[in-house]
């Protein structure tokens, strides 16, 4: 088009000149674009370096040193107390009802089971039209459960009436462009927060299915999210296969803090009950803790004898014990302050995929590929 124009207006020589300019323009454009990317990544690296320097400045003691004054956790008599045998399928996720005794579990065959864990009874079964339901969550009222997985969707069921078939009251709230790996209700039955393999997290309005806020920033699959325990907190954290842990402001959708350190995918993140620190568990077989105020990593929980990755972590009520569910079928209990392992729980016969402390901290539930849930106390 440009050519035509130049022909009609100017002699051939001018046309060539013009074409040259045009080409130059194009080249410049490409150049500047790649340059900006390069510039930006260089700047990012520079900033990262500077940030590390900053963080090191105030680094005066180690956690184990500070925790020296504490007595050891000696009497930790945690044993398997309940065994909930599912179908043949691998259990992928579990969550506690706010009533402290019911558990929802999701499994590889698309079944969602509601258990009365106290009596070990299976109360309800919901079948999803998908396999690998990787996440499930109870709502704060205990009336709804949300789940999702390879179907990329988050689906909500009303399970409040045991006589009714929950799938009759099912609602698809949100859809991601890749699998959904984790979900939770942020203190409300009306909203769901999800993390996905499309590297984003999103906040959904349950009633309308509207996306209230999306969270961009990760460059790998988000594997886990956790909500700040504080009453006024509007923040949550996410851990991803890009080995980053990001802290988000739910209001603005911006990430406000980031932590690096793991050598492999982060599979699980959890807030310390004080809300001042966060922990992560990774495929590199370590768990780490980061303090938000000191803005740095403060502890690594690893042992030479632990070879396998961490799939899920949770804190005890006081934050003193950090539980990790590992691929090697075990659950390790760490003294989060002294950075020592205090207990090793055997029982599962396949990898432990999800562990959750009960709402009142009296028990720990674990889901495993051995098709069972266990309750430890």
């Amino acid at each position, binding site marked *: 088009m440009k050519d035509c124009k130049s022909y009609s207006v100017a002699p051939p020589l001018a046309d060539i000149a013009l074409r040259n300019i045009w080409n130059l323009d194009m080249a410049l454009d490409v150049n500047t674009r790649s340059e900006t990317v390069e510039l930006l990544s260089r700047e990012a690296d520079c900033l990262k370096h500077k940030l590390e320097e900053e963080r090191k400045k105030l680094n005066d003691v180690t956690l184990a040193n500070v925790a020296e004054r504490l007595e050891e956790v000696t009497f930790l008599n945690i044993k398997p*107390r309940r065994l909930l045998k599912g179908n043949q399928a691998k259990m992928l996720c579990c969550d506690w009802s706010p009533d402290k005794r019911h558990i929802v579990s999701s499994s590889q065959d698309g079944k969602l089971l509601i258990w009365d864990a106290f009596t070990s009874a299976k109360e309800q079964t919901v079948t999803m039209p998908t396999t690998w339901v990787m996440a499930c969550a109870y709502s704060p009222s205990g009336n709804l459960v949300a789940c999702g997985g390879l179907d990329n969707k988050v689906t909500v069921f009303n399970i409040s009436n045991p006589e009714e078939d929950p799938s009759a009251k099912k609602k698809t709230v949100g859809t991601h462009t890749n699998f959904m790996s984790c979900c939770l209700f942020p203190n409300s039955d009306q909203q769901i927060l999800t993390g996905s393999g499309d590297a984003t997290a999103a906040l959904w309005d349950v009633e309308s299915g509207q996306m209230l806020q999306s969270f961009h920033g990760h460059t790998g699959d988000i594997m886990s999210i956790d909500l700040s325990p504080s009453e006024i907190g509007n923040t949550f954290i996410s851990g991803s296969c890009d080995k980053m842990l990001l802290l988000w402001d739910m209001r603005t959708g911006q990430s406000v803090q980031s932590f690096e350190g793991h050598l492999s995918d982060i599979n699980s993140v959890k807030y310390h009950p004080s809300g001042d620190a966060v922990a992560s568990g990774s495929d590199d077989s370590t768990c780490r803790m980061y303090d938000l105020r000191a803005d740095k990593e403060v502890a690594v929980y690893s042992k030479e004898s632990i070879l396998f990755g961490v799939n899920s972590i949770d804190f005890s009520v006081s934050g003193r014990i950090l539980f990790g569910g590992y691929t090697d079928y075990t659950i390790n209990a760490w003294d989060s302050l002294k950075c020592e392992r205090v207990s090793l729980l055997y029982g599962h016969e396949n990898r432990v995929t999800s562990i959750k402390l009960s709402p009142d901290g009296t028990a720990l539930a674990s889901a495993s590929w051995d098709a069972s849930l266990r309750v430890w106390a």
Partner: protein
Amino acid sequence: MDKSDRRRRPFAFDKMEGLVREMKDEETGVRVKSQKLFLTSIPSAFAGYNIIEWLMDRLTVDETEAVHIANMLCQYGYFFPVNDSKTLTLKDDSSLYRFQIPYYWPCSQKNPDNVEYAIYLSKRLLRNKQRHALEDYEMDSLNSLKKNLQNKWEFITMQAEEQVRLSKDRKKGEKIVTDSQERAFWRVHRPPPGCVSVMEQIPIKIGGSFSTKKKRSSEDLRREVELLRNCIGRTRVKTSVALDGLVSFGETYNEYDPLITGAQPSNPWVTDDPTFWTFNCPMVEAITEKRIKRWALSMEDLVSDATGLYEFTNYLRKEYSHENIRFWLAVNDLKRSCQSQILQRVREIYDEFLAPGAPCEINIDGKTMERTHKEMKVPSRFTFDGAAEHVYTLLLKKDCYPRFIRSEHYKNLLANGVQPSARRRFFGLVGGAANKKTDCKDRIRSTAGCPSTQGTSSSSVLQANQSSSCSSAKRRGSDRSLTSSPHELPINSVKVSQSHSQSNLSDIPYRGDLPCTPSSPSSNQDNLSGCVEECGEHQLPAMMTDDVCPWDVADGGGGGDKNKRSLPASIAEERERRLSTSSSRKNSGSAAYDSAASADESQSDSVASRLRRSCGLGGGSSMDRRRGSSAACTPQQTIDRPSVSSAEDFDLGPSPESRSPEKQQSTSPHEPAEATSSLDDKLNRKKLLKSLSLARKQSVTPVINVSSVDRDNGCDRISADAVDEMAAATTTVAEDVTSVDGTGPGSGGGQPPETVACCSGAEAATATATATASISDGNDVCPWEDE
């Protein structure tokens, strides 16, 4: 970098291979040699205990862990049992194992395909039947492979024959070793059905998923740079300070961590005794001392406990400063409500707390106000966040909360805190009569103390005997209120005439509270007024927002007082609806439904009577009483109720002068309507207040006296009703006691009669108080009587 990373096998394989390499080290590793077993010699093998010892030594772990690690390595096929090709387990004994060659290590090659498997299987078919015979499952898979790989089958058999031919040239010992290694490799990668396969991966982690495809765009980078810039500017605390915080948090909460210090009386999962949950229901009357102590740790601990929040609100109400907490709760609620309600809720909150002259105007600084006004232009769920934060940090946390913790109210609660640990002894010594007694006392205290908090729910919990099903009851109950509030309506409207007091729920706390001045020492009052509020109003914020302004409602009823006589049911019903909808709206606060729903659900009678009793206690006794009786006889008279009750709000309330000018403003318009004939109402109010408090002080008067006085008055409507009231009260007490009796999980029988007596006595005493109050009302205050 991302790409290569992603393609990489799971991290664990690096670690395992590192360890196995060390194990195979000729100097420091596990010693491998030909082992003699009877007459045969087994080449390149080691015993199970060899490897366990080596692991214990190398990793400094105990035997169990060493066995576990060895078994994991075995399952991944780094070594395998020589004499057992079926199971991949390692035993800590002299059974023999052999290392796998690195070529066959699980991740050194891609997942082997079916062609290779088919070649391997057909190879075995070609060889010595005795030693190489196929297992059943292998036969099956060979057959199915034959079908699926028909076009390649010729190639497969050719390959198999070639390999068999080659192997014939090898030495015998070598042959045994390589055969076993190949077999172990396939055992790992093609396990028999029903066996755990360690090679299975989560589908999402297999193919490089999203992250491999995504290239970081300039936008991503810009975002990252921005984040990093912000992070650098962040203010940090010294690591030592931060860590000290974490450590002291651990110390402080140590005793609240059931997994470390145990639960009182016992951990339900360990002992199968759900008492712990009964004590720790969201709303309880018998609050454990530990729980109360926890409230003093931080404001978060207080407000995250439904009972704590309730007590705190109660306290603030007495101080006339509960608009702050109510505002904060309303804002929290706003954040958590569904999108479609946001606009309306923002408006409601504004009208109630922020608008000039709002009924419950909160006191925030001009700057915050300005910001909020700006935000109001684009209402969102975060509109009031600034104001709420201001209220929370400056007013609630720095002022109200510390005062609450230092207050008599809190000290009283603490003094009356329950010590559930006594129960443990009981469970230890079932049948010990002496123990039983003390124990039951405890129990009575707890349950009788809470005849009503849990109102219906707690007693039903206890009745459920399976107990702790408070939770399951909750699930159901709350459901009802969530999904089917219409169901409740018919029930309630039926009830209206008989228990109109319930429709009055929203008002009650106001009346109920005011007389409960801090000077009244007994916790009974708290309990009683508590019960009403529990069922009605402010256990939950949503409800509060609905009920905030009894005045408003009263306005309708009161303004029209006489004209609206024909509307009683509808008014009451409307209230019910408000109640139920509000409870349904408040989804997040689980406790809300709990009580509201279950209160509606059943035990309507006992609730009604309880409520009535507590209304009576609540201070506006005479009026209520009157209404109670009138309702009993003629539904028509119910009408007075709303109007009068609102009048009482003012009467008994803080004398308007003492309150903020806004409040006074808002009251004034009602006054003419409310007290139509009483021109001297202010005077009367004061009198009434006085007489009430007097009555309260005399509350010790024995039951009988009062009722006899009542009887003396004979036809007097008020006193007759008072008697009714008394009866109701005592029966409920009785009910409560019996329910406790029959249902205490496990504890069952022997209730020490003294406690029953004493607690019913206490109830009676309070009821008496109300009765006296009513009498004095009758004598002293008559403005309404004049009417």
